[in-house]
């Protein structure tokens, strides 16, 4: 139940606590290139290439991966900004793909996103209060009520509405803008919040403030988070479970403890080894992996990581499937030679 008076009511829990809030099944998104009406031969960028996972109610699922892994495309797919080439998404037991019109509009309330670029996320021609009030008004709230809600939300995220409400985006700092974006996302009383590299562009001292805010809000507003980031430290701090992506596929998913301390996939291990040690005595001497990821257009046969993997052999010519290596904690990995501790 929201603490804020006169807000949009958060949609009720239809499926019950056992029902995952969001289930994604074999989601695929291919972007055609070289296509023209004159040639039939087309190449595709396999941005998201068969991704399946679920998010439980009340948890934070962290998604990590480097550039080109498909996490940004995944965010756009989940937020309905682009349509998948194939695959399905189920929100609290209800399929998303077939929704149109009013049911789709209602669903959109439940799923909101905070973007990486705090400046381009705000309309430069609207003051902050109007930007936040826009959403509730779309869903039927009266203008005065929406403005009051917006002011309350601003206070809630730590920005004094009297001081900041009538400012324009260029009059705020990066951290302040990101708080405003969070307030805007909350104005719908959503159930799932997508945070797409939401703190990546902030200064470290400001990042800490925003992360504290996000954690507080999650408890108080009964939220579920999907936290996309390239920063493993932040993902470790924020997440309950972590999903690792490489070249459009899920390579490993499990609890944060298992992923960081009992890593199974060589790529995840390499990512962890690539983190700087916070101690000059423990500096790295060797590079964990060399080179760059292969092209997402002409995918290699078999495991997409084999070209950079120290453990690869002939078995890796067959594409590995996700298998559950620890049913107690649900730790899935997609590798023929997964690491065992």
């Amino acid at each position, binding site marked *: 139940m929201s603490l804020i008076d006169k807000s949009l009511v958060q949609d009720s829990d239809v499926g019950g606590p056992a029902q995952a809030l969001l289930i994604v099944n074999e989601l695929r998104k291919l972007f055609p290139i070289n296509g023209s009406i004159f040639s039939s031969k087309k190449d595709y960028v396999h941005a998201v290439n068969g991704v399946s996972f679920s998010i439980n109610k009340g948890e934070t699922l962290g998604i990590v991966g480097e550039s080109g892994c498909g996490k940004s495309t995944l965010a756009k797919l989940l937020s*309905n900004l682009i349509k998948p080439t194939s695959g399905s998404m189920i929100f609290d037991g209800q399929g998303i793909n077939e929704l149109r019109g009013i049911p789709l509009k209602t669903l959109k309330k439940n799923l909101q996103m905070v973007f990486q670029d705090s400046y*381009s996320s705000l309309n430069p021609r609207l003051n902050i209060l109007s930007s936040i009030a826009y959403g509730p008004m779309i869903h039927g709230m009266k203008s005065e009520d929406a403005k009051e809600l917006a002011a309350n939300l601003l206070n809630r995220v730590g920005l004094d509405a009297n001081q900041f409400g009538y400012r324009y985006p260029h009059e705020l700092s990066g951290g302040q803008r990101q708080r405003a974006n969070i307030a805007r996302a909350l104005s719908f009383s959503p159930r799932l919040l997508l945070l797409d590299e939401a703190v990546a562009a902030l200064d470290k001292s400001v990042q800490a403030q925003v992360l504290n805010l996000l954690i507080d809000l999650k408890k108080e507003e009964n939220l579920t988070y999907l936290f996309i980031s390239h920063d493993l430290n932040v993902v470790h701090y924020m997440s309950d479970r972590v999903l690792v992506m490489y070249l459009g596929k899920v390579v490993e998913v499990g609890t944060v403890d298992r992923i960081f301390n009992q890593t199974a996939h060589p790529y995840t291990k390499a990512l962890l080894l690539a983190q700087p040690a916070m101690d000059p005595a423990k500096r790295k001497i060797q590079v964990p992996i060399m080179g760059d990821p292969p092209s997402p257009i002409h995918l290699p046969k078999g495991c997409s990581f084999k070209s950079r993997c120290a453990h690869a052999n002939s078995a890796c010519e067959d594409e590995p499937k996700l298998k559950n290596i620890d049913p107690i904690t649900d730790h899935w990995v997609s590798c023929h030679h997964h690491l065992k501790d």
Partner: protein
Amino acid sequence: MIDHPSYWTHVFRKLSKNKIAWLSGGLLTVILLSAFFAPLILSTDPYRGAMLNRLNPVLTSGHLLGTDELGRDMLTRLIYGGRISILLGMAPVILAFIIGSCIGLIAGFMGGKINMLIMRTMDVFYAFPSVLLAVSISGALGPGIVNSLLALTIVFIPQIVRVCESSTTQVRQLDFVSAAKMSGASTYSIIRVHVFPNIIGPVFVYTTSLFSVSMILGSGLSFLGLGIKPPEPEWGLMLNTLRPALYTHPGLAVLPGLFIFITSISFNLLSDCFNTAMDIKK
């Protein structure tokens, strides 16, 4: 209490500090007002002249700017002529702005096949040099002021569509538009609240730079005999009819050209000042 001006308030404040804006704006206001209120400020008839009086030079008594080849008062004809010339400058552009922005917005926002259809059609028109296009459409429609206005409007629509479409395509990709889509808002609401206010700036500046072009094109059409017919006063037409007197009375013959020049440069300078004022670096 710190003041938070809205975007347009900010623009006008910046503009008001610009001396050139005041100068060109002031000049334009004088020209526009005198053209509009011509019958009230001038008592002389622009159509009546006496052949005995023809081609009197500037500063003749009773005729501040002299008389033309048919003995009519130049000052009166120039001010009355301003009415039509400025109409030819502003009306087609304003009309093209309204029509062109709508088309450009749709093309830019929809993308895909609709965009391709609209933009390639515009490209066909855009491929013609504007003078050629204006002349051919005007020639096909026939003489007269309405046909001139129509021809000029058609010339400017593709240009405005282009600018509008490119701005819309850029804005459409920004995150706040994505956020608006995610809010469940209708396409109309997204365009009205989020896209339109952000593209209107560049489109507006481009449009204001077209006023002078339109005026000169319109005058050009009249000069070629395709627009206004005598005895209507119009600067371009006046340039044409005074041409035989160019060597004998150059001071008179260039006057309509001078008025075209002053008006169009005022439009351009004001447009430029708007461009600078609209540039908030952030």
